[in-house]
């Protein structure tokens, strides 16, 4: 498990900032896996990556790689490489010598380092680009060279700090495929910072969600979407439906009626916010089975449409494919699969429940069961 990364109680505060940039972050990443560090700007993701790399010294906490404490280990000796948003190719070196850099500084003969670098250029589909000056590369090519250069250092852990955010969507998709191919070939442990949920889901198998320097949740991509641990996590993952109600005997009771919750979880009784992804709600014809609702608004989302629905006075949102004949005022039936439901604490009402101080919070606790089942 050389590339396993463990963070224990990592905190960091910069002088002059209001609060901590990182606050008691605990994270465990298995060797050979890809984890996306997801969150809005200012969430502390990049600082966390720099702390792992040794470019920032945490105030408290430990970084362990392969079980070895990295405290006091210089960044150049940590066995990591980083690719940032800008490729940062050394402008005084050509493409081949950029990729051969890690070998050169390790003292490997230049001829050997260059031959090795040529192999990595081939791996990123840039064979023959070696003699070119770096200014002659396009944005996508430069980022490929940056990845090849990082991989040529044979890092146990590859750190990616929004490496594709400056690329256009098509090129970004190509880079995602390239990264998947590189993972199959070299299998490094990857930690990738991104603020793009789709990118995180496309590239990583697990997501660590950050906000305000705190890690809100660390789970598989599927569970991050279907079982957010809190209202904040749900909102950051793009969840659009929150229905206030009460949990009793495995059901959520609200204006929508009693909805049975997934039985893989022991749902704590009390006030709770029902969460259901807009992609999970099926909108059917009026004469079909399901919950009655009226279309109150429509908004185009590229190849899909976001439908606003009024269901027993509750505002719901659902995504439907283009081509469905829907108009404002239409009556429809909604099907909400039980597996798509989750309940979290409603911060506005949780404290009103008798015994709120002693009751454990509702945090979609079934996700642990599902995660075990996944593994």
């Amino acid at each position, binding site marked *: 498990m050389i590339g396993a990364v463990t963070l224990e109680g990592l905190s960091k505060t910069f002088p002059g900032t209001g609060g901590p940039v990182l606050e008691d972050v605990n994270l465990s990443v298995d060797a050979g896996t890809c984890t996306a560090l997801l969150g809005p700007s200012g969430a502390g993701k990049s600082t966390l990556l720099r702390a792992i790399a040794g470019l920032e010294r945490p105030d408290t906490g430990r970084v362990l790689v392969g079980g070895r404490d990295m405290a006091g280990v210089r960044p150049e000796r940590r066995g990591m490489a980083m690719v940032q948003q800008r490729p940062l190719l*050394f402008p005084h070196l050509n493409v081949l010598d950029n990729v051969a850099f890690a070998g050169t500084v390790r003292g490997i003969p230049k001829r050997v380092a260059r031959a090795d670098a040529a192999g990595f250029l081939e791996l990123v589909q840039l064979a023959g680009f070696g003699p070119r000056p770096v200014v002659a590369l396009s944005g996508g090519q430069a980022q490929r060279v940056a990845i090849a250069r990082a991989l040529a250092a044979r890092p146990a852990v590859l750190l990616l700090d929004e490496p594709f955010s400056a690329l256009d969507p098509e090129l970004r998709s190509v880079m995602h495929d390239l990264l998947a191919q590189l993972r199959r070939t070299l299998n490094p442990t990857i930690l990738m910072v991104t603020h793009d949920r789709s990118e995180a889901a496309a590239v990583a198998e697990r997501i660590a969600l950050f906000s305000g320097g705190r890690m809100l949740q660390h789970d598989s991509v599927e569970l991050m979407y279907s079982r957010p641990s809190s209202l904040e996590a749900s909102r950051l993952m793009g969840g659009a439906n929150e229905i206030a109600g009460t949990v009793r005997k495995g059901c959520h009771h609200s204006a929508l009626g009693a909805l049975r919750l997934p039985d893989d979880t022991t749902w704590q009784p009390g006030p709770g916010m029902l969460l259901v992804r807009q992609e999970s709600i099926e909108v059917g014809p009026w004469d079909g089975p399901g919950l009655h609702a009226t279309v109150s608004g429509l908004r185009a989302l590229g190849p899909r449409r976001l439908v606003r629905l009024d269901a027993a006075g509750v505002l719901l949102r659902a995504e439907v494919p283009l081509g469905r004949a829907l108009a404002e005022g239409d009556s429809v039936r909604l099907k909400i699969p039980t597996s798509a439901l989750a309940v979290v604490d409603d911060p506005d009402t949780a404290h009103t429940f008798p015994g709120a101080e002693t009751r454990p919070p509702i945090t979609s606790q079934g996700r642990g069961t599902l995660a075990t089942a996944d593994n």
Partner: protein
Amino acid sequence: MAPPASVGGRSWLPGTLMAAPAVLIAAFVVVGGMATALAQSLGLFPLVGPPSLTVAAYAAQAGDLPVGIGLSLAIAAASTVVACLVGFTAALVIVQGRWCGKLVAALGTLTIPVPHIVGAASVSLLLADSGLLSRLFNTGGSWPELVGGPWWIGVVAEYGWKESAFVALVVTGTLATRAVSYDETATLLGAGRLRRLRHILIPLSLPTLTISATIVFVYSLGSYEVAWLLGRVYPEPLPVMALRLFNAATLTARPEAAAVAIVTTILSFGAVATALTYLNRSPLWR
């Protein structure tokens, strides 16, 4: 045919108009001054008598010119090397951002506005055989000839001190804006401090170092006051020689002063041309 107002989709006209006042003034001073000096050195602009094309002014100083050229180039080269070494090291310290870096930056900033003539006087008061250091160490007459000696150490020390601050601040600008991110990238690729210095910091700073070194070299080659105050009476560096001839009682020495100035200018142009040739070959400059 008039040139097009836009090249490659970019209009050159606004930029040219904005630069025109500065270019015109600089051209008037530089081209006008050089043309006058050249004409005077070739006998075409005499103070008395009819103009006639002659190289007599150059021939009159033919004996002293080679020594003066060699001495001037040696002083300028030594000063430039010292200024670049000290300045680059200071820039590295400044970029670290620690308290000593801030101290060095403050010292460098304070050094810039001090005039060379004040610097020369300070060096004399410090390093001369009757100076502060000699008295402090009480050497009893065995103090080396740092000022007015055969190695022109006082002159080189003054230029090195003063110009190193200039080099440090210019290189710091480059290092702070460009090199830090490259330095971190190299670190994570396994490069230790010395490797980063050799493979990243020095190559990335070379264009800036080349430009500032050229400025220091040309300045040290062409200015007279430090060498005049801290140097020997003979042999003379070119600018001191030109000043002496220019101030000579005999008016016929003026063309000889102009000839020495023209030789100094040619050497300076040679240095600038060499630097630009190197820069044009550098991938960082293109």
